[in-house]
């Protein structure tokens, strides 16, 4: 048994290292897709969100998110206190917030909790770095820093608790017979939707970059300044994603990791090709930047269902994600008049919602025995359990409602407190020179 625990601990730590590496991928993708005059600012946000997030999650976030979980059986026995705050209605319990393990005080020498902390931290940081893309090229740095604290200590931990920490969304199955409750294996909703929806709220409150939407109704194109960098970042993300998904078994002793990794690769490939063909047919141009976003969309969408579906379903999930990205990137600009410089809202928000629902459609009943305390494997609509789809829909709707609402209120408040936007002059000149005081590409 001890060797199994060691194996699983090593697996989880290795996966956490891979997911941490995704911070680099995000930095490269977002900076590549934005303009040269804002490269330092975009990089700086992607950099600072990491230390800020680690500290915030260590002090507060982890306790809120996972303070109610008794232990991690695959990682070894641990005998630590846990507390989930919530309320009872009759015999039903509705968990709302974790209430222990703050600053890791009570679990300072508990290997399972610590490994899980590291894994959960880099997940949170992934979610937290998504809005920096949607709000790039106009966000005041102090407002961004405030957001980093809010995201790592409050917003992300709340929704993570509801789905992963024993909160009420995970008990929809036990309490109401809706399948296994919300099933999100690696975070299509918890991580990606949360990031995408927060980015949407922020982009609405901040408004578009100057000159994006012209008075005559046309929309300006601001091409990214370093496509090669964006492509490299995409590969870094795709690589790290194997840790994201396969690591979420929390166990290398679980043979399902093979299928999870394969599904992850297939879905991302299908997403990339679909987006490529989409843009090729529509604009007669094999646009690699959209294809990159298609690959990421495929990854986001397979994140929740990766353990529960067969490879052909993974491909189909990726195809739909590729279409959502191709359609969404344009539609969000044209229909909603929201300016998302890197396409984060489509990639993480739309595809995250799709991935969440996809569990409830394609889960084929070969995995997930006893998941969320409900007997039997996880089945989707196509394999006989419509209730699972209903639970997934509740999860997606709650994410849109609660995360968007809280994020919106936060951005409004931060605007009053410190001001969200840089001055117009700063934006025209470039945030690097006037907001950050340095330049990515000095002329000399």
């Amino acid at each position: 048994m001890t060797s199994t625990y060691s194996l699983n601990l090593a697996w989880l730590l290795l996966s956490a290292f891979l997911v941490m590496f995704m911070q680099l991928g995000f930095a490269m993708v977002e900076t590549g897709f934005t303009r040269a005059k804002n490269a330092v600012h975009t990089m700086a946000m992607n950099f600072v969100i990491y230390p800020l997030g680690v500290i915030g999650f260590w002090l507060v976030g982890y306790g809120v998110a996972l303070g109610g979980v008794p232990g991690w059986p695959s990682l070894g026995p641990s005998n630590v206190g846990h507390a989930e705050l919530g309320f009872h209605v009759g015999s039903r319990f509705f968990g709302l917030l974790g209430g222990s393990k703050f600053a890791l005080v009570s679990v300072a020498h508990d290997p399972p909790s610590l490994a899980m902390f590291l894994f959960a931290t880099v997940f949170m940081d992934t979610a937290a770095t998504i809005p920096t893309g949607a709000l790039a090229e106009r966000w005041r740095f102090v407002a961004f820093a405030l957001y980093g604290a809010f995201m790592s200590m409050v917003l992300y931990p709340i929704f993570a608790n509801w789905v992963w920490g024993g909160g009420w969304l995970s008990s929809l199955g036990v309490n109401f017979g809706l399948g296994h409750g919300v099933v999100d294996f690696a975070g299509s909703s918890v991580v990606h939707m949360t990031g995408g929806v927060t980015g949407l709220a922020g982009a609405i409150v901040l408004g578009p970059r100057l000159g994006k939407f012209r008075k005559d109704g046309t929309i300006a194109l601001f091409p990214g300044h370093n496509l090669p960098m964006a492509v490299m970042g995409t590969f870094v993300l795709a690589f790290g994603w194997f840790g994201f998904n396969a690591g979420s078994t929390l166990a290398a002793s679980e043979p399902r990791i093979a299928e999870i990794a394969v599904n992850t690769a297939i879905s991302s490939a299908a997403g990339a090709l679909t987006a490529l063909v989409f843009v090729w047919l529509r604009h007669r141009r094999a646009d690699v930047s959209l294809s990159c976003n298609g690959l990421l969309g495929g990854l986001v969408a397979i994140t929740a269902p990766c353990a529960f579906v067969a490879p052909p379903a993974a491909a189909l999930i990726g195809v739909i994600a590729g279409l959502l990205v191709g359609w969404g990137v344009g539609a969000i600009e044209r229909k909603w008049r929201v300016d998302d410089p890197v396409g984060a809202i489509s990639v993480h928000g739309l595809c995250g919602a799709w991935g969440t629902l996809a569990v409830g459609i394609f889960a084929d009943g070969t995995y997930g025995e006893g998941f969320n305390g409900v007997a039997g494997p996880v089945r989707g609509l196509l394999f006989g359990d419509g209730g699972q789809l209903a639970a997934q829909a509740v999860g997606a709707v709650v994410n849109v409602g609660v995360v968007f609402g809280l994020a919106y209120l936060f951005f409004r408040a931060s605007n009053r407190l410190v001001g969200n936007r840089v001055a117009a002059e700063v934006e025209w000149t470039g945030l690097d020179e006037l907001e950050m005081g340095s330049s990515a590409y000095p002329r000399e």
Partner: protein
Amino acid sequence: MRDVIAGERLDHYELTDLLARSGMASIFRAVDSRSGETVALKVPHMQYESDVGFFERFRREEQIGQKLEHPNIVRVLPSEERSRMYLVMEFAEGRSLRALLGNRRKLPQEEALAIARQIGSALVYMHEHGVVHRDLKPDNVLVNAEGRIKLLDFGIAMDEAARRLTWFGLSPPIGTPDYMAPEQVRGKRGDARTDIYALGTILYELLTGETPFVAGNAHAMMRAKLEADPRPPRELVPTLDPKVEEIILRAIERSPRERYGTAKEMLADLEDPSHVELRDRSTRQPPLLQRLHIPRRAVGPALLVIVVSALLSLTWIVGHSGPRHAPPQESSPIAPTAAPS
């Protein structure tokens, strides 16, 4: 300095009349006061004096012009001691083929062929000397009262940085794409066969009064050149000799590989069209996908339906065959979600 005008003196040249004026330069008739010879002076407008790229092109035109000595090519005369940038050329009587076409719209077959032969002979000579014109069009062909022609304007010939004419880069100085070869539309520099294409287009226009492709604007024209076939000249002029039509169609083939390989071969056919073998173009197979005539708009949805139904079937097959469950394990490791009791 300012732009010179007729009546003024430029070094030892008396400018007598303004012959032509383009966006970039004026051409004057002038008298060399030393020899009494009548010459033509091409003087760029002032604003180009300091343009390095333009200067380079101008210098190249001069070098090439001095290298070429052919009865159908305007000669560039050597001249020293110039106080500013200009080009001294032999003075050729006549007007441009463009002006001629403007007056007469189209010419009888023999007259048109006579002009095409002279252009062809100039091309043969140029190509043998390693010079490709690249900008051959009726505006650059002078024709005198006896029907003798001379080629002009080697501004982009041989130029390594020759304006790369791309789909999106159509800038005003380039003007009409009528005579541009498809490979130039695609952004390539072009070679000898590019001039052959232009000559074919000119002959087409001389005989029919129209250009092979008609489109509402420059972009549509360029697209037509890449995707459509030219109207056969005999549709416009039914009395035209089918062999002459064959020469034209072969010269303006979309793919350079299908054209005459050299100006020499084309000139031979122009001199004696009776030997030309007719090719049957109707049986030529376009790429399979084009032959299927699938409307572009239907491709996406059709692909989607096929892919989605294939993947759904596969999902169903996988879900309903083989072992339904993973082998049993010592413990169930899925963990982070243990519901509180």
